[in-house]
């Protein structure tokens, strides 16, 4: 076992990505209970909020059970060493309406994301958080869709705005390990700030991809307890904790408490834990945002079409995160095409 492995920052996204898995119905009781467990497990950050981040509670994506500031306050009260983070997508979240409230609520880290080609829309949000003296990272979502060269160019923009870390999200669960190695390696070698990876489980590769990222130079890794996240879920934190220990990476995780947090999550969110099925597999193959799983199933059932067809058509259109409204259009279009043409 090597003793010179680097220190890894582990981000627990259970109470943010998991929002997608339970149609945004996370309660304050669940937040309090899980935040305690995350703190005990020693994760560096706990991310809380709507699945698409601040200001994303909407008819478009789904409305949160609890207002976001109450969610943040509930988590804040339970955390001491584990720091509180939020996801932020300009286009949903504004500085005036959402960032200022989250700053006042004591959020430690703002992870400001955009679709992987649109980093310049994060400039004002990133600068605002930096000016307020808090930590801010840049997040490139749906990063399977473009080359490592484009990712580096966009990551450099975020770095120039003040981002202190860059996370590549495999929002669709579409990566295989060789791609992770190439892209994370390219960024880790060229950026001045640490690089992270956020995996999804659609093709069953979340842990393999997370490990590939670490071996390629990532110093930040995301996961969720029991994989509680969009689509087929994320890299399960209890498995990440075990693999990190097995490979000798230095972390602040307490393994037993990380395992306990997973058990607690399974109890708290029983009935909503993600499962791998034909729909999540097709979603990963088609390269569509994992958060679309539930709305696609709902629309497909109402309109009498195959949800897998909806995913492949959304993939063909290169739909990005936030475009949930197109699900209804695509499903309606498929339903119309499926109707027998009237004979004269």
């Amino acid at each position, binding site marked *: 076992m090597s003793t010179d492995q680097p220190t890894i920052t582990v981000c627990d996204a259970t109470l943010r990505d998991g929002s997608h898995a339970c149609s945004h119905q996370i309660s304050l009781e669940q937040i309090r209970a899980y935040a305690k467990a995350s703190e005990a497990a020693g994760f560096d950050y706990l991310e809380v909020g709507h699945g698409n981040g601040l200001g994303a509670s909407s*008819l478009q994506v789904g409305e949160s059970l609890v207002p976001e500031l109450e969610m943040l306050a509930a988590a804040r009260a339970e955390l001491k060493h584990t720091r509180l983070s939020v996801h932020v997508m300009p286009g*949903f979240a504004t500085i005036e309406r959402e960032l200022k409230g989250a700053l006042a609520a004591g959020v430690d880290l703002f992870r400001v994301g955009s679709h992987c080609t*649109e980093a310049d829309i994060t400039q004002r949000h990133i600068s605002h958080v930096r000016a307020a003296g808090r930590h801010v990272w840049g997040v490139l979502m749906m990063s399977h869709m473009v080359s490592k060269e484009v990712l580096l160019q966009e990551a450099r923009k975020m770095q120039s705005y003040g981002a202190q870390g860059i996370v590549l999200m495999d929002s669709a669960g579409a990566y295989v390990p060789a791609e992770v190695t190439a892209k994370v390696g390219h960024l880790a070698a060229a950026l001045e700030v640490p690089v992270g990876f956020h995996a999804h489980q659609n093709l069953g590769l979340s842990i393999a991809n997370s490990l590939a990222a670490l071996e390629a130079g990532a110093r930040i890794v995301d996961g969720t307890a029991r994989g509680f996240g969009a689509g087929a879920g994320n890299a399960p934190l209890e498995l990440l904790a075990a693999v990190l220990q097995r490979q000798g990476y230095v972390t602040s995780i307490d393994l037993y408490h990380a395992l306990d947090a997973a058990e607690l999550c399974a109890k708290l969110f029983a009935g909503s834990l993600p499962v791998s099925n034909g729909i999540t597999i097709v979603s990963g193959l088609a390269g569509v945002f994992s958060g679309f799983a539930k709305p696609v199933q709902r629309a497909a059932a109402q309109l009498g079409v195959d949800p897998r067809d909806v995913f492949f058509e959304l993939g063909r259109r290169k739909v990005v995160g936030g475009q949930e*409204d197109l699900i209804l259009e695509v499903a309606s279009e498929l339903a119309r095409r499926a109707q027998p043409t009237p004979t004269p």
Partner: protein
Amino acid sequence: MGVKKLNVAILGTGNIGTDLLIKVLRSEWLNCRLFAGRNLSSPGMTKGSLLNVPVSARGIDGILDLKGDVALVFDATSAEDHVRHAPRLRAAGLIAVDLTPAKVGRLCVPAVNLADCIDEPNVNMVTCGGQASIPLAQAITRVNPGITYLESVSSIASRSAGAATRINLDEYLMTTEHGLHEFTGCPRTKAILNLNPAQPCVHMQTTVMARIASPDLARTRAAVAAMVEAIRRYVPGYQLILEPMTENGRLVAMVRVEGLGDYLPRYAGNLDIINCAAIAFAEAVARRRHA
């Protein structure tokens, strides 16, 4: 002797201003007296010169020098600039059609309130998403009173979003929300904008969603169809692609806007619709003066 055209000037020679110029040149009711910006060698200014349009690099001063020879000015500069321009245009007795989010004058969405705006000295064209969504939202709330929450979601091609749009995303969202609220009276409104980099570029699409348990779907569909027809008179590429339907406690309707492809590419329906709205207002002013 044909129709007496209204003399107008265009302030700002970027993409929006230059596309407006092409639309003015095609109009039976408008005559471009001056195309004014800051840089004679900009692509827009070059295009204007090639089209034999009088140009000036002296901005608003060039327009004000024309004194009584211009009646209406399209301002396609920036919100900060329009705040400075507005009082000077007003003092000179010029009607201002503001394409920036400055919100100095009355909000104008031609399909909804053209007649009410016709005597205003300054009208603001809200935002592209506002021009696309407010008429739908207005039709929906008229038929279904008591809606307390409305959303407008627009997706546009990344290439149609210039540097100004990107840096002003928050202002876009808040101006669109303000417009939705003003025109529908709905207490809570929300706007969302998605940029999609897909190639070939995607056309602008806008979805309006309302939280309502049991809408009058038949009347909603009729009201929305009538509204779409009204908009198509000045935005030919405006198409209803999802008839009002209910799903998961939401009433949803969706449109796609194909641009005219004048100076900007056809996928940039977001830029086309706000320009078409500005032209519709100016032509209404011209018709009224002629009558």
